[in-house]
């Protein structure tokens, strides 16, 4: 019974099944062969039996060969494939197979080579596409240079006097060649943006000034059409993050369209600001856009059915540029009633910081701070620093309670009893680590630890959010407090040697409500991570002083630093290891830089959404 059950069980195994069916088939063939032989060889049983034995022997041998040569190696092959014993660097199979399966391995590896080759061909194709676009644009611009150059020369009168009518016609030639030039530039711009080759020179820009500059260059056209150009300003300046030229390009494009499609009435710009974003509304009393057209508006090569002139490529560029700036655009419109384009852009850091503090002021009544310190002069110092900062609006309103030592601190039973921040001196409390961690367990607030003699491993093992060495330094103290008190969300550290890129990502993430610090070298990463708590590290593969991989290996050695999730950023072709290997090193995700800013922001947002513990302001 056991034997049969075992046999039945094994029968599920395909290779056993193959052997079994082959055996049964062979046996059947042998049987028929036997019967035929018996009749043909004039009923000589001994001879038939003898041949039978030889036949069985041959069959057994064949089956054994069959198993050893094909089935068994195939099983090994399958198992090894399943265990993913593929070379992490080349993606090839690297175990030694023999016999017919050698071909299988070779075939597999050839397939990998083929895929690699195809990938590089795709890449080359993309590159040559841009090369092609740039060549075409050169070919188009050369005759345009002659057309517009001679037209301008004639208009200027350098080549002799021209009549008014001649001059008017020449201006038409000039205007149209300029339009063509603009289209070629737009076309190239899009090609470039799509291949992620746009360089942004990022700074803080005064929005009002940018809009006014745009108005300046559009005033004449607007006046010719009898349109009213209006701007609704905020009292204060609004600063956004971005490339000035590109921002101007965005608004010039939108305002130009608004003027183009408005025949009477007005074009109005309204600027407003929320905690992290600036909102710019461009409203016109123009022809409006039908709902169908609205959907198509930002698609490539779309031209509104209702419009006399094409939208050209302008709106696609606007959208792509805004995306690169971490911004967005919305359209609301009704045919015959005008349109409103609403642009959002991230505010610049200074104003964003303002907003965070103001935001906290708005939501909060007061922050409670508990300070545990046996040194009276330190206590006094801290109290005066804190109230001073609070008075200067650098910090939200504060209420302070002081304790001379840990045993004086009341037991926290419910969530509402505790402080918003605990500052504690552990210099003399080394022996009381149990009391300390018990206190911390109940605490639902950040903890700042101060000490004259503890090393950081102990400090973080009790679960501090930040620490300061004694004697205290006023500035450092206030920075830490600010950091902990107005921390309203996740904290991210960006390490990238490219300043532009780093700042751009930083701004875009801040725009998402994250708190972001940036550094350019590996050393700084370590310093920051030791001193402060971060929820995510965005690490460039190629830092100035150390490779990202080396840095990760260092981080892996520390129990605490190991905990910080890492996103590795690099150019796609710099992905030196497959995803699998990155995962092993503790990298949660690999971000190819070619995918652009939007992708980085989306990945990071998604990551925190997955973690789902967003620390809201209390």
């Amino acid at each position, binding site marked *: 019974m056991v034997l049969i059950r075992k046999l039945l069980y094994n029968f599920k195994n395909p290779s056993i099944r193959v052997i079994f069916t082959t055996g049964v088939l062979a046996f059947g063939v042998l049987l028929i062969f036997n019967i035929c032989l018996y009749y043909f060889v004039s009923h000589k049983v001994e001879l038939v039996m003898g041949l039978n034995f030889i036949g069985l022997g041959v069959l057994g041998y064949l089956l054994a060969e069959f198993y050893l040569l094909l089935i068994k190696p195939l099983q090994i092959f399958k198992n090894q494939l399943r265990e993913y014993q593929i070379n992490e660097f080349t993606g090839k199979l690297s175990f030694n197979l023999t016999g017919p399966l050698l071909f299988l391995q070779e075939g597999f590896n050839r397939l990998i080579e083929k895929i690699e080759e195809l990938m590089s061909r795709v890449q080359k194709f993309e590159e040559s596409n841009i090369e092609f676009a*740039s060549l075409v*644009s*050169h070919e188009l*611009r*050369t005759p*345009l*240079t*002659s*057309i*517009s*150059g*001679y037209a*301008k*020369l004639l208009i*200027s009168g*350098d*080549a002799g006097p021209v009549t008014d009518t001649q001059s008017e016609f020449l201006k038409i030639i000039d205007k149209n*060649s300029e339009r063509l*030039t603009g289209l070629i*530039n737009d076309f*190239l*711009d899009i090609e*470039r943006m799509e291949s992620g080759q746009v*360089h942004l020179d990022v700074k803080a820009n005064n929005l009002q000034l940018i809009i006014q500059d745009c108005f300046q260059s559009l005033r004449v056209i607007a006046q010719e059409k009898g349109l009213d150009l209006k701007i609704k300003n905020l009292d204060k300046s609004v600063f956004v993050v971005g490339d000035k*030229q590109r921002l101007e*390009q965005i608004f010039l494009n939108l305002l130009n369209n608004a003027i183009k499609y408005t025949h009477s009435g007005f074009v109005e710009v309204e600027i407003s600001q929320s905690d992290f974003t600036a909102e710019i509304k461009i409203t016109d009393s123009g022809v409006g856009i039908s709902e169908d057209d609205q959907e198509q508006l930002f698609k490539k090569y779309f031209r509104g059915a209702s419009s006399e002139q094409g939208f050209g490529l302008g709106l696609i560029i606007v959208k792509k540029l805004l995306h690169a700036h971490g911004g967005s655009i919305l359209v609301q419109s009704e045919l015959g009633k005008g349109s409103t384009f609403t642009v959002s852009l991230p505010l610049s850091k200074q104003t964003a910081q303002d907003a965070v503090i103001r935001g906290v002021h708005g939501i909060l009544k007061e922050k409670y701070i508990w300070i545990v310190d046996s040194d009276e002069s330190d206590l006094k110092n801290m109290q005066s620093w804190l109230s001073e900062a609070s008075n200067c609006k650098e910090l939200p309103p504060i209420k302070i309670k002081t304790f001379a030592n840990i045993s004086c601190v009341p037991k926290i039973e419910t969530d509402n009893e505790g402080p918003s921040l605990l500052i504690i001196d552990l210099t003399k409390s080394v022996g009381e680590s149990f009391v300390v961690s018990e206190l911390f367990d109940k605490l639902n607030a950040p903890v700042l630890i101060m000490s004259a003699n503890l090393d950081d491993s102990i400090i973080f093992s009790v679960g501090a959010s930040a620490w300061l060495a004694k004697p205290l330094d006023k500035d450092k103290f206030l920075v830490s407090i600010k950091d902990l008190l107005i921390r309203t969300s996740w904290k991210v550290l960006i390490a990238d040697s490219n300043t532009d890129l780093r700042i751009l990502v930083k701004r875009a993430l801040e725009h998402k409500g994250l708190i972001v610090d940036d550094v350019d070298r590996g050393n700084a990463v370590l310093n920051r991570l030791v001193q402060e708590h971060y929820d995510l590290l965005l690490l460039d593969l190629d830092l100035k002083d150390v490779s990202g991989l080396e840095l990760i290996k260092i981080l892996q050695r520390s129990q605490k630093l190991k905990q910080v999730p890492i996103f590795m950023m690099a150019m796609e072709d710099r992905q030196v290891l497959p995803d699998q290997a990155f995962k092993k090193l503790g990298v949660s995700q690999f971000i190819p830089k070619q995918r652009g800013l939007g992708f980085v922001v989306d990945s990071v947002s998604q990551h925190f959404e997955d973690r789902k513990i967003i620390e809201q302001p209390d």
Partner: protein
Amino acid sequence: MNNLIDILLAEDEEHIAKLIVFKLAKESFSVTVARNGQEAILLLRKKEWKLIILDVMMPIVNGWQVLKELRSIVSLNDIPVLMLSAKGYQNLEVVGDAEMGAQQYLKKPFDPEDLAKVVKRMIRV
């Protein structure tokens, strides 16, 4: 005629070369035209050029190669160079290569008036 300022222009497009020559002649410059980079290199030492204007895309030897050749000759190192190019994207193209020593870059299509202004500024007349 001796007091005219000599400018060397390397431009393979006949019409564009003619346009530039015409405009700059109005401003009292004497422009010698080289039809390609090779011709330009041969002409480098022929006169005391006050300015050299190079089109980037030229057959045989392109503008950057001419510039490189020019910068390898110590005695000609101080001549200001204006590059013209129809390649590039908007106005954001990085202006030449600082190490190559191109001081100015003008994108095609250009307004002849702008060209004259740039040239005058570069020669400081």
